[in-house]
């Protein structure tokens, strides 16, 4: 059977298609159809010829097969050093083979490649740092995902995720009205406690335009409240765009480059419409990577930068604390052993390795901070990056993947893990559910809110 009803080469374009696919519980029929899905070998080869240029071709060609990348991959390490988990092997046996065979591969091969691309690699890019030739297999897996997506070989949740972006310009079914309304609700809920708290919507020329992750709106809007409180307490002139507020991109995990472009252009349009001085995104790793690091390229911006300076939440927070816009009550600083999870997406992939540490220097009582080993750009992936967290089909592999992080955390002796990234936060939450090692985990916002020293005029009347 060439194209299935749910599993096919056509992206989700409408809400009806989205609802229908969502109705296929756990993708049961979707995956059944996938086993019959034909490979359009001609399209595959044409795409490769058009997009696989000297960088990736050279990488594939000069790989010395030295195996030095093996130890850099946490999935290799946790899977009892299974040689099939060696990054070089994983990419050579998938993308390498496709190129070698000029796209002449069959359904079986594509199923294997899909599992490799989504269950054996989180695109954390750590291997690239350990290859003498500078071969970044994470990048190649990102590329491979694009080829697989084009052929319809993509995990069910990610086909939906990319579809969400195409239909809603958000990773979940949250409309523009719902976003603004939820933000306003959160402000109402907290204005007694923080007099004067507001959420400025679509204000032009503000200093900060704030963008979020749709999950905050849908499931834990407290995060929006905390963001509003911190901007308010810092006296920032900020705003949210009613359109283009979603910073994340499941389309990036899915390899749906066209949807990536649509999504990020929506945010850039908001920047151009509202002309803020800066954009600040929420505590999310892949959202930052999608909108700030990779986004400019999808949108065809030659300078590799978004239309206005765009920073991660931790950069804003560090600045606000450094400049004294936000004051911390020293009494309420963290007094339990605490460690930090470095997010690959903005630490290894955007150089923000010391920013969160600066924040911790203000909010943790001296002597309580513990570094993970390794850390900074050498840190391991949380175990759930690149979409791994959300894919039901690969849940067992994901759970195994959490072991690296579990052991890293245990080695620090920390009771609290600060994870300023949604994906890492989820993975660490799941890790506690799976292994019950007795840790707590948190974003930065609730911690900072709880230890804020408010100026008198911002205190509630009693």
């Amino acid at each position, binding site marked *: 059977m060439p194209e299935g009803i749910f599993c096919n080469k056509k992206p989700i374009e409408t809400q009806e298609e989205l609802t229908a696919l969502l109705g296929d519980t756990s993708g049961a029929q979707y995956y059944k159809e996938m086993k019959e899905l034909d490979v359009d070998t001609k399209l595959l080869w044409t795409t490769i010829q058009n997009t696989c240029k000297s960088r990736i071709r050279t990488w594939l060609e*000069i790989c010395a097969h030295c195996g030095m990348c093996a130890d850099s991959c946490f999935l290799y390490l946790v899977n009892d050093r299974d040689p099939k988990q060696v990054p070089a092997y994983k990419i050579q046996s998938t993308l390498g083979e496709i190129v070698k065979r000029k796209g002449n591969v069959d359904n079986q091969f594509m199923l294997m490649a899909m599992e490799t691309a989504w269950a054996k690699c989180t695109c954390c890019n750590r291997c690239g740092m350990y290859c003498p030739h500078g071969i970044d297999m994470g990048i190649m897996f990102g590329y491979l995902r694009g080829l697989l997506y084009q052929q319809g070989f993509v995990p069910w949740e990610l086909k939906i995720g990319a579809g969400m972006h195409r239909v809603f310009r958000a990773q979940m079914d949250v409309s523009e009205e719902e976003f603004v309304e939820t933000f306003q609700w959160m402000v109402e809920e907290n204005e007694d406690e923080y007099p004067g708290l507001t959420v400025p919507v679509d204000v032009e020329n503000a200093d900060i335009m704030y963008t979020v992750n749709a999950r905050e709106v849908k499931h834990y809007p407290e995060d929006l409240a905390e963001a509003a409180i911190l901007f308010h307490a810092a006296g920032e002139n900020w705003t949210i765009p009613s359109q283009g507020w979603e910073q994340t991109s499941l389309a990036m995990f899915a390899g749906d480059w066209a949807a990536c472009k649509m999504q990020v252009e929506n945010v850039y349009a908001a920047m151009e419409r509202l002309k803020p001085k800066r954009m600040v995104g929420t505590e999310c790793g892949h959202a930052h990577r999608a909108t700030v690091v990779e986004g*400019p390229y999808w949108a065809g911006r030659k300078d590799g930068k978004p239309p206005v300076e765009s920073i991660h939440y931790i950069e804003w927070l560090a600045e606000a604390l450094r400049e004294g816009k936000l004051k911390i009550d020293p009494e309420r600083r963290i007094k339990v052993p605490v460690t930090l999870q470095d997010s690959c997406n903005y630490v290894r992939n955007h150089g923000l390795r010391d920013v969160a540490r600066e924040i911790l220097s203000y909010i943790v009582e001296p002597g309580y901070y513990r570094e993970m080993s390794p850390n900074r750009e050498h840190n391991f992936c949380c175990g759930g990056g690149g979409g791994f967290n959300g894919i039901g089909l690969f849940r067992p592999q994901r759970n195994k993947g959490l072991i690296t992080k579990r052991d890293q955390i245990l080695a620090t002796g920390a009771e609290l893990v600060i994870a300023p990234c949604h994906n890492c936060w989820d993975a660490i939450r799941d890790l506690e559910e799976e292994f019950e090692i007795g840790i707590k985990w948190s974003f930065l916002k609730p911690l900072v809110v709880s230890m804020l020293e408010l100026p008198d005029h911002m205190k509630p009347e009693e």
Partner: protein
Amino acid sequence: MYEFITGFMFWLALGVCLTGMIVRTILYFRGLQWNLDRVAYKAYPVEGFKGAIRSIYKWIMPFGTHGWRKQPFMTVIFFSFHIGAVCVPLFLLAHNLFLKEKLGFSFVSINGGVADFLTWLVVISTIFIILRRLALPEVRILTNWYDYLIIFISITPFITGLMARYEVGSYSFWLLAHIISGEILLFAIPFTKLSHVFLFFASRAQLGMDYGIKRGGLKGTVMDW
């Protein structure tokens, strides 16, 4: 015979090797595309250049990177092999005399003892490299006949050179074998995995530019290789 292989064949091998390297390097850099690679190479030439140089420099220093430090055994055999493999062909006195005669110029020459030592180092580290390939499952799974062919092409000139050097059996046979295998190596460089002798620098430069520009370079973060 000798005339032919040190004459026409030598010129051909050298010509093919050099031209091949130049053409392929040019093609490599022309094939870098800012939008497909998602690195704004042209917008930030200075940052890109710095990142590239650093990325190369760190990795050609023994124990210069986390990767090298993490695997000391590999680092030792890797550098033992490569230092010899680069220095002996270029700086051996006999090669320089040959060059002088053919091209009218020569490089500095190294002491004969040092050259012997380096050559033996190349041979011995090759043995270890092969053993490592056989012993470690994570390397074995990657290894195929092509890898051994490359090792064979690379090591034959050294072995034949040593045979000639110690005049085991017929000197002229080994010399001939040495020259032929050397020329095969030159021919192979642009067309096989041996292209890494120049593409190593290209590829490292590329990732260096990536980090120097996009992945933190513009934020002022110097990559900790």
